[in-house]
């Protein structure tokens, strides 16, 4: 395309780019067929049935509180759930739903001591298995680590997979933002029963302002102009990124105070319902996955876990990509998923 053609194409490219951005909500995400197994308050446990099931231990996926769990099943043809089903796993997904003002008093203890073990129990009953494999991502990974840190070997989790999970936040950018004395998290939690998801998302994007607010859109426009843009991929990701459930006020206060102001988890000082969360009690087969270009949970935030756990079977994968790209990026299917599925398959026998 010469310069003149390129200029002539500009109006059409601009209209097409705007169309992709404006119709992102129409993208189909989380489309794999699933059954509701159990619900409690806003939490729902879904089951994705595999018709090739060959591993008796089911996989339970747990995501963070600040985005929807649909990222595990982003779009047909590019879905971690579909991949696991193809590999013969029975897959369950614990979706925290969309909290509202009445959930403002929901603390981390609800997720760690109630919803997660109850979801595991229902998955066990439904799959007819004594064990489950827990796969937690980001805050979801931290919740899984807290659960196994309390229950230890008593937890029905046989395998524990933690994806880009914050454990030691001492050098996190969040710590310099919300960990400081002047960030009054108590005032926020008292004023807002639930912290709007948009504000949490805005803060996340602010970590890389130019990349998140400008470069992503500029690259889309350039891709459309060059004829290389993938409409479905962009819209699915854009829709997922924009869907931010609110963070229950009490859980937000506890997360910020315990994780960023006091860094309690790695120090073994966190207590939930009187029980100490001791990462040294983790005995499960453990797989820790970090992403080389993760600015939200850099490697240094996760690695201390490896020195704390009691597990004899510990594996660490360091993969390219960012916090989300690790599992949902275009290279995830080749570079991340096979390793995860193999690791699980070797540890999911009868």
């Amino acid at each position, binding site marked *: 395309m010469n*310069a003149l053609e390129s200029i002539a194409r500009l109006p059409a490219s601009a209209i097409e780019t705007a169309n992709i951005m404006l119709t992102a909500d129409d993208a189909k995400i989380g489309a794999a067929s699933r059954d509701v197994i159990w619900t*409690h308050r806003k939490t729902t446990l879904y089951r994705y049935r595999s018709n090739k099931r060959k591993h008796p231990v089911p996989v339970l996926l747990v995501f963070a509180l600040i985005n929807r769990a649909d990222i595990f099943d982003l779009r047909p043809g590019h879905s971690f759930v579909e991949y696991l089903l193809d590999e013969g796993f029975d897959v369950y997904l614990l979706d925290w739903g969309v909290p509202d003002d*009445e959930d*403002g008093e929901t603390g981390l203890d609800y997720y760690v001591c109630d919803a997660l073990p109850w979801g595991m*129990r229902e998955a066990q009953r439904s799959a007819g298995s004594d064990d489950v494999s827990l796969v937690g991502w980001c805050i979801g990974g931290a919740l899984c680590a807290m659960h196994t840190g309390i229950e230890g070997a008593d937890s029905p989790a046989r395998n524990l997979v933690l994806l880009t999970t914050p454990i030691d936040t001492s050098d996190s950018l969040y710590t310099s*933002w919300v960990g400081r004395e002047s960030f*009054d998290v108590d*005032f926020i939690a008292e004023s807002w029963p639930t912290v709007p998801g948009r*504000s949490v998302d805005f803060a996340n994007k602010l970590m*890389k302002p130019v990349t998140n607010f400008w470069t992503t859109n500029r690259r889309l426009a350039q891709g459309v102009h060059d004829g290389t843009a993938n409409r479905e991929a962009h819209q699915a990701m854009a829709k997922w990124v924009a869907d931010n459930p609110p963070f229950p006020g009490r859980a937000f206060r506890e997360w910020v105070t315990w994780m960023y102001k006091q860094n309690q988890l790695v120090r073994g000082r966190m207590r939930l319902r009187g029980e100490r969360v001791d990462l040294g009690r983790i005995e499960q087969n453990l797989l820790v996955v970090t992403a080389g270009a993760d600015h939200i949970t850099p490697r240094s935030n996760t690695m201390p876990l490896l020195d704390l756990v009691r597990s004899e079977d510990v594996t660490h994968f360091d993969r390219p990509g960012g916090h989300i790209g690790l599992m949902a990026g275009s290279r995830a299917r080749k570079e991340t998923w096979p390793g995860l599925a193999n690791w699980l398959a070797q540890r999911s026998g009868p």
Partner: protein
Amino acid sequence: MADPAAREPTATPEEQVRRLYEGAETQTAKAMEQLVAGQGFGELLARMTENVVALSKVGSDVGDLVLRNLRIAGRGDITRLARQLNRTEDKLELLLQRIEELQDELNRERVERATKSAAKPVRATARKS
């Protein structure tokens, strides 16, 4: 350091402009990331957040007061009701779990009893022979 665009004689003017722009964008992105990582920005963000929260609280309190004076249920009233529903749901869930445990226990006992009673005649026959 030599300009990468200058090293490639085949690059069209459009490609050169694009590269220059992308280089500038990368530099700006890095500069902005350094800016937001600074202590001053953290302080500013903390104050801004507090102000936004305070303003939204004032707005929502005024709105709720207006509704209450009009004798219409406000957000607070609906939240209170929903919290009661949450508590009831918690109790129901625990009750359901207990019932399921008892049901499992009963099933196990039934299976044991059936196994025992099925084994008895076999032993009796064996003794006779």
